[in-house]
């Protein structure tokens, strides 16, 4: 059985609230069946609006959304059969855990013993068996979150939407819940559309990530590609840490280009530059630049140590390199003794392949 790669389809969707500003611009997005896709972006980037349009609480100003090839713009939320986990859980405070979970089944007129079975199964899935008669207020934040997840899944929806569900939890709990949700997704194979502004969350959980900014999808790809191969400087900046140089292309071939900086010249990988004279921002991940490189690398520079911060498993070194005083290096805390002292000059090298020449900022 081949999976439907256009299970959820945003087709040229625009959304404006006031008729003046477009919150979502010409969104085209295909989500395949059983996929875990994350909409990632800063607040105000339009990601939550997309989710609300899919859930049916907002209508697209233009364009159409398809669910399993059926247009859904005219279907009210309660007939879409889409489960949703809300930011603040939205558990019904006057109902017990059991009643909360039974709600979607009762409105679907499911038989009583069938309800019992499904609620049981859903609760054991989030390891909350035995909590049926508790009220939501008697549960911890993490438990409430799990009840909300179970409630969104209990009626076997085709798609589950999650709107920053872990935002209110503390760091440790958030991480364990990430794995838990990921495992639930893997076990039952439901299509999940997940909205977050936390890139760590997005990278750990998703099959694919859609990075939103300014109402547009900037890049849609798998987590590793997103991190290793950002297609523009917004994505490079937004995902992970990043060292940048602004400059101008002076020479360009197929795989490498020369970029002239304020005081120096480096070799870079031309991604979104085409010809000589293009302005560009070169982006290098901190872990791709090495100190005293043993292998031959095509970029070799010398920088002055401005700051050293101990992080336990690694040390962050801030350099003044080629006029960029915010050049960050990550040095693993292995036994090799490096002379990391303030004011010392050190040699730094990286491959031109890892220095991506993107659009100018």
């Amino acid at each position: 059985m081949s999976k439907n790669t256009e299970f959820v389809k945003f087709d040229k969707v625009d959304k404006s609230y006031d008729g003046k500003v477009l919150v979502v611009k010409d969104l085209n997005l295909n989500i395949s069946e059983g996929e875990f896709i994350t909409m990632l972006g800063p607040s105000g980037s339009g990601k939550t609006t997309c989710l609300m349009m899919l859930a049916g609480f907002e209508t697209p100003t233009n364009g159409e959304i398809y669910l399993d090839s059926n247009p859904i713009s005219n279907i009210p939320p309660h007939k879409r059969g889409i489960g949703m986990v809300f930011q603040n859980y939205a558990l019904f405070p006057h109902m017990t855990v059991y009643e909360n979970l039974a709600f979607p089944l009762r409105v679907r007129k499911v038989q009583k013993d069938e309800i019992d079975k499904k609620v049981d199964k859903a609760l054991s899935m989030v390891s909350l068996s035995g909590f049926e008669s508790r009220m939501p207020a008697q549960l911890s934040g993490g438990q409430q979150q799990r009840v909300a997840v179970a409630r969104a899944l209990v009626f076997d929806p085709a798609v589950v939407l999650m709107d920053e569900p872990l935002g209110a939890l503390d760091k440790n709990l958030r991480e364990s819940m990430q794995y838990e949700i990921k495992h639930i997704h893997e076990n039952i194979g439901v299509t999940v559309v997940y909205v977050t502004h936390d890139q760590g969350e997005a990278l750990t959980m998703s099959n694919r990530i859609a990075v939103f900014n300014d109402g547009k999808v900037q890049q849609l790809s798998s987590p590793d590609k997103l991190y290793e191969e950002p297609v523009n400087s917004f994505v490079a900046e937004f995902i992970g840490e990043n060292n940048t140089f602004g400059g101008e292309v002076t020479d360009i071939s197929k795989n490498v280009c020369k970029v002239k900086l304020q005081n120096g010249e480096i070799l870079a990988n031309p991604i979104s530059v085409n010809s000589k004279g293009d302005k560009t921002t070169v982006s290098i991940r901190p872990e791709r630049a090495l100190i005293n490189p043993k292998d031959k690398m095509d970029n070799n520079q010398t920088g002055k140590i401005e700051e050293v911060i101990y992080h336990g498993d690694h040390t962050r070194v801030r350099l003044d390199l080629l006029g960029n005083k915010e050049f960050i290096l990550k040095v693993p805390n292995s036994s090799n003794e490096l002379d990391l002292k303030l004011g010392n000059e050190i040699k730094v090298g990286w491959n031109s392949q890892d220095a991506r020449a993107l659009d100018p900022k």
Partner: protein
Amino acid sequence: MSSETKQILTTDGIPLEISLKKAERKNKIKAFLLVAPLLLFLIITYIFPIGEMFTRSIDDKMITNMLPKTFKSMETWDGKELPSEEVFVSFLSDFKILVEKKEHGKLAQRLNKEKNGFNTITKKLFRQVKRNKIDETQSIKEQIMKVHKRWRNVEYWQAIKRTAPPYTSAKYLKAMDMYLNEDNKITQVSEDRRIHRILWLRTVEVAFFVTVFCFLMGYPIAHLLATLPMKYSNLLMICVLLPFWTSLLVRTASWMILLQQQGVVNDFFVMIGLVADDNRPEMMYNKVGTYVAMTQILLPFMVLPLYSVMKTISPSLMRAGKSLGGTPFVAFWKVYFPLTIPGIGAGCLLVFILAIGYYITPALVGGASGTLISNQIAYHMKTTLDWSFASAMGLMLLGGVLVIYWLYNKLVGVDNIKLG
């Protein structure tokens, strides 16, 4: 078990509890001093007057003090046949003192209330005493009995005996259209004189329906207030609160202008052809007027508690209800409505309690069929000056409210009330 646990001592060896009390004492005194003025105010303006009202409503000491010897000698009288000579002697001596103090008129009035006919025979006796016609050496009983034949009737002496206790429940019984008959049994007054019970029932009925109308009209307004964006909801809030900024009297008067037979509303009905010009409905000086005016005046008391509760209900709950497959109605009925019950309870209780004691509006627009028990209380306060009766009715009203509060607590739970 707790008694077995070892007493905990502080490092200085003082028991922990005592040490804690010592440390907290200063704060407690401070806190008490802060609330003391309010407490004093409450005692003076609330608890003390209610106590005063209560004693006034059951007080019957006046006659007890007028006929002390008579009542003393009556203690041994079985009340079946005419009392003995001794009772007559003491009655005469009490009466003489009253005549000297010129208080015999009051006695006649009080006894007449107990049984009709006392006025005449007391006056006759007074004349005899005044002219010194009573010979103290002869049998007093015979002489008094000769004054008027009613003094020979045992029922009149029974009536005197009934007034002996210093306290009476007569006012309460009267408010229920009942009285104590000759045999000390609670009896209903004749049917054509039962006015109070109708008033009580009507008061409860009006209060109930005003509460229902306020709820029906207030719920959507409160919901709108809670969900509209700030700039609109502020304006709407001002509209809701506007009645509070106008005097109650002015508001009631404007309802009179609107509702009277030649008033604005009737003119409008005639204009659109809803009613004929010579057949204008009466919307005032009856229950309709009371309902309309009271509902409008009490509406804010329903809207505000509802609003404050609805404000706290997250809109995502309704969304959750819908996304889980509930129709908008199911989401409202199963999710939103149950969460507003504390506000409904508070609003209904508030409106009902205010309505049950409402005075000005029914007095002005109620007419004969729209007046309530509070108007009756005012009538006895101002016109008949029967303050003890007014007190009794006031206390019954208070008791009724307490009963409703108790019922509410049993059914919904007072902890669930939310006034904002």
